[in-house]
C-alpha cells in the first residue's frame, strides 16, 4: 500500500469538507477498498473515514413509511435491525461472512457497484432512492454498468430509502470462493407491479429482467415464468460458469424467489 493521510470526520459536513482535499477518497468499511489499496489499484492521498459519522449510521422508518438506512450502516446492523423489511435484512445477513458484515457498509457496496454484489440487486429490485450529500438518485438512474454509478467525484452516499413491498425475496447462488453471488435475484411485489433485479450475471452489472416483471405483475406465481429465458450473450463468462449457465441460473433463482413468497 502507498501511504495516505486518514481523516476521521464526525459529521457529514466535515466529511464533505475533507473530500474536497486533493485526491481524497471515502473509506466505508474498507472491505473492498483496503484490499484494492494493497494491490495498488488505487492511490488516494487522503482517506476520509465515514465510520465515525454518527448521522450516517443506523436504520429507521421515515414519515412516509419508507425504511431509511444510513450510508455508513454495516451489513450486520441492517441484518439485525431492518425488521420492517425482512427480505432486505435476510439479504444483508448473507453478505460475505460475519467479520465482513461487521465492517462493510451499504454506502460502500453501492458506490463500488461490484457486478456480483448483493445490495445493487436489493436497491434496484426495491426501487429504492440513493441519497447523497447533494441530491436524491432513483435506483433506476443510479446503476450505470459494472463498477459504474451516477455518483460524481467526491459525492457521498448518506442514506438509502426503501419503499416496503407487499412481498419480497432474494435468492443468492453463492460463489463459494469469493462468497459473492454467482447469480443473485431480488424479487419485490408492490401494489402497482413486480420488480425483478439480477446481480452476478450481466457484463453491464445489475439489471431488471423486464419480461419476468411483466409476467409476474399479471400472475405472481413461479408458473408465470415458464418458457421465459434470457440469452447468454452479454452475460459474464468465467471459470465459475459460462454466460449460458448464468442466464439459465437467473431463471431458476427467479422462480425460487417467487416460490419462497407466492
Amino acid at each position, binding site marked *: 500500500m502507498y501511504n495516505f493521510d*486518514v481523516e476521521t470526520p464526525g459529521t457529514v459536513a466535515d466529511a464533505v469538507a475533507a473530500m474536497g482535499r486533493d485526491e481524497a477518497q471515502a473509506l466505508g468499511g*474498507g472491505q473492498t477498498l483496503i*484490499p484494492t489499496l494493497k494491490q495498488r489499484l488505487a492511490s488516494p492521498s487522503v482517506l476520509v473515514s465515514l465510520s465515525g459519522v454518527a448521522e450516517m449510521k443506523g436504520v429507521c422508518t421515515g414519515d412516509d413509511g419508507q425504511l431509511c438506512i444510513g450510508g455508513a450502516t454495516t451489513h450486520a446492523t441492517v441484518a439485525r435491525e431492518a425488521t420492517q423489511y425482512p427480505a432486505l435484512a435476510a439479504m444483508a445477513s448473507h453478505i460475505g*461472512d*460475519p*467479520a465482513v458484515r461487521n465492517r462493510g457498509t451499504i454506502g460502500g457496496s453501492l458506490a463500488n457497484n461490484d457486478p456480483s454484489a448483493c445490495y445493487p440487486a436489493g436497491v434496484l429490485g426495491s426501487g429504492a432512492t440513493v441519497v447523497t450529500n447533494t441530491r436524491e438518485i432513483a435506483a433506476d438512474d443510479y446503476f450505470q454498468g459494472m463498477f459504474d454509478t451516477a455518483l460524481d467525484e467526491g459525492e457521498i452516499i448518506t442514506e438509502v430509502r426503501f419503499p416496503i413491498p407487499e412481498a419480497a425475496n432474494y435468492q443468492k447462488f453463492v460463489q463459494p470462493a469469493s462468497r459473492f453471488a454467482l447469480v443473485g435475484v431480488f424479487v419485490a411485489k408492490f401494489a402497482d407491479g413486480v420488480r425483478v433485479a439480477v446481480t452476478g450475471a450481466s457484463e453491464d452489472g445489475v439489471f431488471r429482467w423486464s419480461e419476468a416483471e411483466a409476467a409476474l405483475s399479471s400472475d405472481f406465481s413461479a408458473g408465470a415464468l415458464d418458457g421465459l429465458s434470457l440469452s447468454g450473450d452479454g452475460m459474464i463468462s468465467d471459470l465459475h460458469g459460462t454466460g449460458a449457465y448464468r442466464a439459465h441460473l437467473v431463471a431458476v433463482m427467479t422462480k425460487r424467489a417467487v416460490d419462497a413468497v407466492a
Partner: protein
Amino acid sequence: MTKIEMTVNGRAASGDVEGRTLLSSFLRDELKLTGTHVGCDTSQCGACVVHVDGEAVKACTMLAVEAAGSEVTTVEGMANADGSLSVIQQAFQDHHGLQCGFCTPGMVMSAAALLKENPKPSEAEVRDYLEGNICRCTGYHNIVKAIMAASGQDVAPVAAE
C-alpha cells in the same frame, strides 16, 4: 505519523502509526502480540480475526487509526485471569480442533463472537458462522465439535465421525 491509543486485552496501548498501518500490523509489529495471524492479507481467510468493541473483524482489513479509542481483544486476551485456557480454548484442545494451529487464533475469536451472540448454536449455525475462517488442516469437523462442546452441548451427533 499519528499517535493512537486503544485498550488491548484490558490494558492501555499506544503507538505511532502511518495512515496505511493495518490493525494486524500494529498488533503484531508494534505491540508484539503475534497471536493474531496473517494468513492471506486479502480479507479471505479469517486467521487475523480480533474483536473491536466486541465485534469480530479482520484485523488485516482495518486501519489501525480506525481502532483508536476502541477496546480490542486478541487471542492473547482469551485465557482466564489465572492463565488457564478459556472454555473455548480448552475445547479446541480436548476435541483436536487444531492441527498446525495457524487458523486457530481466528477460529477461537470467531467462536467467541458466535457464542456471545448465540450461546447454543446448532451445528449448521456454527458452520455458517465460520464461513470466513479457512482451515487447511482439520477439515473443520473437530473445530465444529469443539465449539459445540464449548457451548455446553452434546457433541456426539456432530456429523462425519
